[in-house]
């Protein structure tokens, strides 16, 4: 990800008086382009009735800058994606040090953890999602082929 452009966009939202709505991550399982899997991370903001978000594709190990300097409340989301997805967020204003959820299995939402669970299910004959992502415009392939991450923020729908 382009750190400078990203933080500049975040600052624009901050100056524009937007409220942080959520930071959301989605794990995509391994594909040919990204053998270790990848994360689709969304930073969403709300102002009046408008809802917009920035989207980045993150590869495990990538450094993701914290936005807590502009949006102090981001610490909760950032601690969460760090703990559940294992995304390497740096520069948090409040670092809970992995004590937020303290799940029995560490980093349960990471691509490898999901893959391991699904494979175990398949081996045990338990019905569950397939450990290989479906091809097509959606799913894991979608994240890999999505437009350049720092493109203009997509206006999301409000519901």
């Amino acid at each position, binding site marked *: 990800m382009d750190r400078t452009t990203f933080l500049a966009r975040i600052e624009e939202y901050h100056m524009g008086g937007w409220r942080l709505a959520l930071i959301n991550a989605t794990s995509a399982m391994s594909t040919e382009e990204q053998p270790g899997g990848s994360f689709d991370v969304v930073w969403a903001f709300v102002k009046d009735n408008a809802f917009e978000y920035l989207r980045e594709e993150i590869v495990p190990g990538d450094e993701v800058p914290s936005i807590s300097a502009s949006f102090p409340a981001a610490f909760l989301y950032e601690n969460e994606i760090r703990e559940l997805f294992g995304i390497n967020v740096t520069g948090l204003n409040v670092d809970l040090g992995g004590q937020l959820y*303290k*799940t*029995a*299995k560490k980093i*349960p939402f990471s691509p490898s953890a999901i893959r391991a*669970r699904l494979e175990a299910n398949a081996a045990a004959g338990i019905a569950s999602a397939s450990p290989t992502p479906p091809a097509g415009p959606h799913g894991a392939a979608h994240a890999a082929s999505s437009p350049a991450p720092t493109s203009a923020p997509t206006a999301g729908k409000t519901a």
Partner: protein
Amino acid sequence: MSMFSRSPWILHYDGSSCNGCDIEVLACLTPLYDVERFGVVNTGNPKHADIFLVTGSVNERNIDIIQNLYGQMPDPKVVVAVGACACSGGIFARAYNIQGGIDKVIPVDVYVPGCAARPESIIDGVVQGIAALEEKRKKRAS
């Protein structure tokens, strides 16, 4: 018949429930159900309690808490598992962070079914809990 059947004091702990059973436990105290008629008091303090009402299932994190609370209750004491989650893990039994019902951690005397358990069945569970309490007292005395 001893005083136990007339004065069962309750400790309520929410394991990892969805709140549904918890609010129904609280609803038992309020005017429509009014369990204080039977001398039931929601103590909120393990050292005063006779009946341990647990809602929700067990996850890694609350195992210690549940054991600790149970340990702090003076004998005789009984455990009532309220709702499907407390009985077996319920709908969340398949979730990755859930280990199952309360009986994985502490001995359960009464199981109250339901998702969410209705106040009537919770009261019924407490009444059955009283009977169990009475038995344990007799055992202690003999």
